[in-house]
């Protein structure tokens, strides 16, 4: 048996050691300074190059282009989500034919550039005018906006199908079995147990996919859709002022930043139950 015989007197806290300037710290500070200079020069450029006349002439067009971009991406993401569900299920299916078709679809649309897909639909299908007219679909394929929408839907559906499949498969097997062992049918278990958990897992990848779609949507400007980038190209062709592109970049940055914050809020709200 041992007993305390004396208390150790309190000692002062050790003196704070001053960190000297290392090569790594100097390099880090230099890089930060360069970034700060770049940001400052951009701000100065925007302020110094401000032109009230151009703003009044092209500002409304930019807003129209912004709306076109948002609506195009919004509709394509929603339709793509709807299309991704059967594709994801086909990918997970034990039916080899369905699985192979879904795999081929996903593989093709994820492995080829969005621009190539857009050209194939707009120019490629455009060359089948008589056939499309005969089945009453020419009204759709002659319009660049619809072609852009279709290419976006098909592209995002492939990505979203993989996001959804991965999310569903990430839900522990015990959740499926737990439901079955408690007398819950497969369809109810999927809707009320598996899917809510899968969608939480999928939330961040979905956000990333929407951001990529917003940035990728600029390609429709090439096929004469006056989205944000289309209006920017129009403004530049009239003014030859590179600041038109700078403003487009600011708009894209703003959309992405707003979306990022919305997504962060959604994620925090929907994952409350996972935090102790």
């Amino acid at each position: 048996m041992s007993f305390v015989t004396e208390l150790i007197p309190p000692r002062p806290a050790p003196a704070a050691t001053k960190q000297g300037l290392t090569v790594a710290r100097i390099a880090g500070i230099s890089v930060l300074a360069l970034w700060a200079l770049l940001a400052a020069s951009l701000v100065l450029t925007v302020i110094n190059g401000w032109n009230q006349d151009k703003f009044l002439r092209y500002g409304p067009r930019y807003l129209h282009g912004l709306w076109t971009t948002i609506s195009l991406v919004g509709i394509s993401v929603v339709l793509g989500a709807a299309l991704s569900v059967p594709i994801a299920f086909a990918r997970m299916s034990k039916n080899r034919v369905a699985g192979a078709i879904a795999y081929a679809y996903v593989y093709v649309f994820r492995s080829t550039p969005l621009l190539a897909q857009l050209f194939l639909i707009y120019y490629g299908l455009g060359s089948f005018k008589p056939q499309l007219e005969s089945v009453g679909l020419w009204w759709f394929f002659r319009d660049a906006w619809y072609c852009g929408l279709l290419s976006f839907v098909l592209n995002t559906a492939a990505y979203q199908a993989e996001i959804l499949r991965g999310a569903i498969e990430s839900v522990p097997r015990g959740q499926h079995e737990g439901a079955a062992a408690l007398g819950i049918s497969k369809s109810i278990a999927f809707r009320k147990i598996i899917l809510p958990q899968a969608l939480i897992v999928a939330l961040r990848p979905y956000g990333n996919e929407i951001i990529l779609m917003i940035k990728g949507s600029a390609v429709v400007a090439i096929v004469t859709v006056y989205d944000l980038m289309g209006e920017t190209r129009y403004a530049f062709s009239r003014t030859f002022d590179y600041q038109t592109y700078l403003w487009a970049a600011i708009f894209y940055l703003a959309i992405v930043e707003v979306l990022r914050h919305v997504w962060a809020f959604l994620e925090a709200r929907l994952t409350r139950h996972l935090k102790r």
Partner: protein
Amino acid sequence: MGEIKLSDVNKSYGSVHVLKDIDLHIEDGEFIVFVGPSGCGKSTLLRTIAGLEKITSGEIKIDGKRVNDVSAADRGLAMVFQSYALYPHMTVRQNLAFGLENSNMPKAEIAERIGEAARMLEIDQYLDRRPGQLSGGQRQRVAIGRAIVRRPTAFLLDEPLSNLDAELRVSTRAELAALHARIGSTMIYVTHDQVEAMTLAHRIVVMRAGKIEQVGTPLDLYNTPANRFVAGFIGAPHMNFLSAQVVEVDPASVTLTIGGSHRLLVPLAGHKLSVGEKLTVGIRPQHITLASDPGSLTVKVRLVEALGSETVIHADLHGEKLLAVVQGQKQITPGDEVHFSVAGAPLHLFDNNGLRIGA
């Protein structure tokens, strides 16, 4: 009712035979425990009863009804998983109610059942929390509660205590026993912890490599193990096994030599042993005592574990390991030579195939 009958059940994954000719009759209201080493097929057997795994051949009957092709959801059983499998996006109340709501039960009855289960398991103050806000023990109770509210034919529990710390395991084990006494339903419990099996079970099913080695009450298995595997598996620390040779035979007894020259007279009626035959003697560590007379087994101490109330002595007897658990605190150190006595100790004899000799 909760009578479950398995007849000639086999389960294979390709060429791997995981359950072999399982025959088992579980009575209504019985608490039965499947034990065995990792990979012996006990969880697979439980999952086949639950309907989570399809059997390759044989028959499973629940209350006389063949359920081979009945889905897990329709077997009327409730399973508690090692991982709890609680729904993280639902509160405790929603977790308990979910299965009932989907069977279109009136809300008043659901509330009544939840209240009853919550009081029984002392989780009523956690009903509005989510699983992420609960401790392991609380989650375990919710998982059990979720099974209780269904009022199933039988409860299936797959290593439900393995994620809990040692102290909590002991208290939860006692709670499970009390719960079974209160609700009286059939419970089938899987564990690799034979202390859990001994304390909870009416009957224990000992499994090895997909086969049932022995079924019996805890004391049956402890006192009359059917073979060397069961003898070594049931009881902690496990039984000592010593090589022996028959030197004399009588109609009612045999004399054996162990540890080189030490002679043991073993009462054994109706045996068919002959002089010179080699066999194995099993002695439980708790049945060995320290002796002072040199006529006892002289052993060399390798390791001493002083546990306060008892002392565990690891020793060597002519190259064979021998373990003794003696009461109290002993002043023994590794390297010492001590004398062990097995006088009056129940001895278990096993033949060359590991099967028990005698009753």
